[in-house]
């Protein structure tokens, strides 16, 4: 009896097992039959998920960049709900605000008038400067939510966010006044962060009346007052280009020691003669002295020895001929030499003439990189965005854009530039409680009247051990660098350290 039960059990088990096997087989057959469907379904699910992934990516990563494009005029549609926010300086002064009269008419007011005209820009005729750059923030409101709801119910406009710039009114005014009646530009950067502290451009215009003056301003091609020379100017660099030569020499030889040259006041190659400025004869000199005295003949020889290719390579490593990380409209700096330029052009290029064109902003950036141990910080104009009641909405974090040179290379250039102040062409900056370093430039150009004139250039930085300010000054047709540009830098430095 028991045996029988066992047998039954066994057979039951067996049939159960058989059934399971059959089931599995069937399942397998079914799966293989539907394999194509599974693949196609997965394929399309992946496609749909990647669409969603892209939407998420767009909103998280790309959105800010896209909507803050100056082409974007959508935010202006909110003008009937939001009062444009204020633009403030880093020292708490108001650079632009909107005034509403009793009838609700709005006027944009710029208390500092011409002084900040280009960099702050204007909110009409297509917008410009920080008004265009920060348009999205100025037309957005992150005001307290209850306040916003209250305003909506009362049908009042909500106040747009305030944009706190990196600009410093004290320094900007010092630079503006120092440049005086000269056309040109002054740019000051904080070399450690990239914050733009000063951006002056002359000739200027009055942003309070720019709409009314528009036709005159646009047609005035002799002055081009609307052009922001700080970023859009394109000038021959003159002797400030010797910084590039020095770096190229350093990269070729590894050191500046052992260099010697005997300056006879001029150098002639292929019938092309380059004299030292003012016909001066510098005699026997080492690299430091040649740089400090801005000896044209020595640097012409250095340029000839290095050759076009190495100069080009060094210039391009300093962002000539390439995009610059400047958020406002700018012009690229140009360095065109070609592989076999011929000696005359090579000689001219070595002393910063030839086809080379630079913007003051770019020169300030290179200077700031030298001051900051070779690292170029990304320049920025907007320190933070705040609500109308002063709560921070977002802050710009300083970031390294690129290491333009090694720390050692920057150290050598620093020493060279220090000597320019101690014993060279910028001694007017010496004898202060702060130290300074720099390089002057006197760039020749042919004026509109056909006469040869000279742009006055200076690039440099203050407090050499722990640099505070990096500056670039250009005064158009003003004469030598020592005569005009150095004193301008001097006044800006003084206002930073003494007042």
């Amino acid at each position, binding site marked *: 009896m028991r045996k029988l039960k066992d047998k039954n059990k066994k057979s039951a088990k067996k049939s159960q097992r058989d059934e399971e096997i059959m089931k599995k087989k069937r399942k397998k057959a079914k799966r293989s039959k*539907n*394999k*194509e*469907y599974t*693949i*196609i*379904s997965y394929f*399309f*699910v992946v*496609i*749909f998920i*990647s*669409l*969603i992934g*892209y*939407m*998420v990516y*767009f*909103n998280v990563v*790309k*959105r800010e960049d*896209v*909507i803050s*494009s100056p*082409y*974007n*005029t*959508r*935010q202006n*549609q909110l003008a009937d*709900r939001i009062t444009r926010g204020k633009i403030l300086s880093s020292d708490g002064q108001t650079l632009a605000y909107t005034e509403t009269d009793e009838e609700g008419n709005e006027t944009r007011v710029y208390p500092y008038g011409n002084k900040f005209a280009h960099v702050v820009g204007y909110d009409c005729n297509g917008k410009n400067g920080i008004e265009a750059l920060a348009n999205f923030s100025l037309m957005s409101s992150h005001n307290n939510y209850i306040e916003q*709801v209250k305003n*909506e*119910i009362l*049908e009042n406009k909500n106040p747009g966010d305030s944009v706190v710039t990196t600009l410093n009114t004290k320094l900007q005014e010092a630079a503006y006044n120092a440049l005086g009646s000269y056309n040109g530009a002054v740019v000051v950067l904080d070399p450690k962060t990239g914050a733009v502290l000063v951006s002056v451009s002359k000739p200027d215009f009055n942003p309070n009346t720019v709409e009314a003056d528009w036709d005159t301003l646009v047609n005035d091609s002799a002055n081009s007052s609307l052009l922001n020379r700080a970023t859009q100017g394109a000038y021959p660099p003159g002797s400030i280009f010797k910084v590039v030569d020095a770096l190229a020499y350093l990269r070729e030889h590894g050191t500046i020691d052992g260099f010697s040259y005997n300056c006879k006041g001029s150098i002639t190659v292929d019938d092309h003669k380059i004299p030292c400025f003012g016909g001066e004869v510098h005699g026997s000199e080492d690299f430091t002295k040649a740089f400090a005295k801005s000896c044209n003949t020595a640097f012409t020889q250095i340029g000839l020895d290095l050759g076009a290719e190495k100069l080009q390579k060094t210039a391009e490593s300093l962002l000539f001929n390439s995009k610059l990380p400047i958020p406002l409209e700018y012009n690229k700096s140009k360095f065109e030499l070609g592989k076999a330029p011929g000696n005359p052009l090579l000689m001219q290029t070595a002393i910063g003439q030839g086809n080379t064109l630079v913007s003051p902003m770019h020169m300030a950036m290179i200077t700031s990189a030298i001051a900051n141990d070779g690292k170029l910080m990304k320049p920025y104009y907007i320190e933070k965005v705040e609500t109308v009641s002063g709560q921070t909405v977002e802050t710009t974090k300083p970031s390294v854009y690129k290491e333009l040179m090694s720390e050692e290379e920057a150290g050598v250039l620093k020493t060279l530039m220090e000597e320019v102040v101690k014993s060279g062409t910028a001694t007017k900056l010496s004898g202060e409680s702060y130290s300074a370093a720099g390089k002057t430039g006197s760039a020749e150009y042919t004026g509109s009247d056909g006469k040869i004139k000279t742009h006055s250039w200076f690039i440099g930085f203050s407090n050499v051990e722990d640099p505070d300010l990096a500056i670039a000054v250009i005064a158009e047709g003003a004469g030598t660098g020592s005569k005009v540009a150095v004193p301008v830098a001097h006044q800006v430095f003084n206002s930073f350290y003494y007042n």
Partner: protein
Amino acid sequence: MLNLIIELSKYLLLILIVLYTFESFTVFKYEDDYDKRYILRKQLLLIVFLDFTAFLVIFLKTEKVEIIYLFGALLLYLIVVQALYRIFYKKASILLLNHMCMLLSIGFIMLSRLAPESAIRQFAIVAAATVIAMVIPIMIKKMYFLKNWTWFYAALGLGLLLIVLIFGKNVNGAKINIDLGFFVFQPSEFVKIIFVFFVASRLYRKSATFRDHVITTIIAAVYVLTLVLSRDLGSAVVFFITYVVMLYVATKKPFYLFAGLGSGCAAAVIAYFLFSHVRQRVVAWKAPFSVYEGAGFQIVQGLFAIGAGGWFGMGLCQGSPEMIPFVKQDYMFAAICEELGGLFAICLILICMSMFLLVVNISLRIKKRFYKLIALGLGTEYAFQVFLTIGGVSKFIPMTGITLPLVSYGGSSVLSTIIMLAIIQGLYILREDEDEEIERQK
């Protein structure tokens, strides 16, 4: 005050569509018919509530009487179409029907906000199309000879495409439409359906030889080439992908899938070098800001719209989608992103995906290979078209200028999509009948 209502309404609309989307995926979990029906009814309520909220906001903002009429008409449409299917086609897929209603609703909301006159016109077409499409499921059931009309399909489809190529109206460089006076007819939308019938009738036989496949492939290639010559790139890509998918599923040879996709990539590269209009699209895709004044303008405006919307949108009637050229036709998705928000748009993508999976599922369960392939082909066309338009608008892939089915404005597009869905309903009903027969035999 009104702004506040609009502000709140956008969150309400988002919640409604999130619930709807969630349920369109969970409904599969329920085995019990009663639970399923409950959820599907709830979905319908969500659609009606969504329409009500949206149209109320649009009316308050625009104060146009047409908006009320449009809402009334839409509500009537929803009731009638749901009732008709429940009465005449008890076995139809209600989820598919709900999805159609939802997508049509979103389209009508945006269209009423952008251009009420267009919404009225679109409504007339949708209503007519739905009535016509009501007979299709019966036709599918009765007309078992459909699978023998292979050469009729081939000739009809190609003929229509050739007519467009020769006589078509040139719109922005592309020949897509034929102006019939009262109706601008876009044949490629209908050829899409005919093409699937042609390919299915060629491939459904298991006895089909390699030679048969070669002939079919050649004819399919002629279709695609004609579309490329008409510069209807979007349709060309849709036809191509659909053919590759159908061929792969019919033959079960992975080689065909890879060879198809590979030759597709090669053809795209050749087209890039051969046709300037293809290159133009690629440039506008890679760097739209560099050609802002020209080919990039539409893309950049679309991106501004999507960016302005962010996650939650500006609220209905609060954005400026009308700044985008052809927003009603090609850029509806950007308008949705701008006013209803990125999260709403993601739900829309998920609903489209659910629709595709549903169609694949239907195809999977059909026994007859001819019908199986048709369902799969139509589903593929739908899914890939959604991908092309949404991907193009969001700059994920180059823009091909194709509509978002059921949502975009365009008579031919909505008419052909409604017909497509009716065919799929017909096949679904057929499958249910088959199942019942099997049950009875047991």
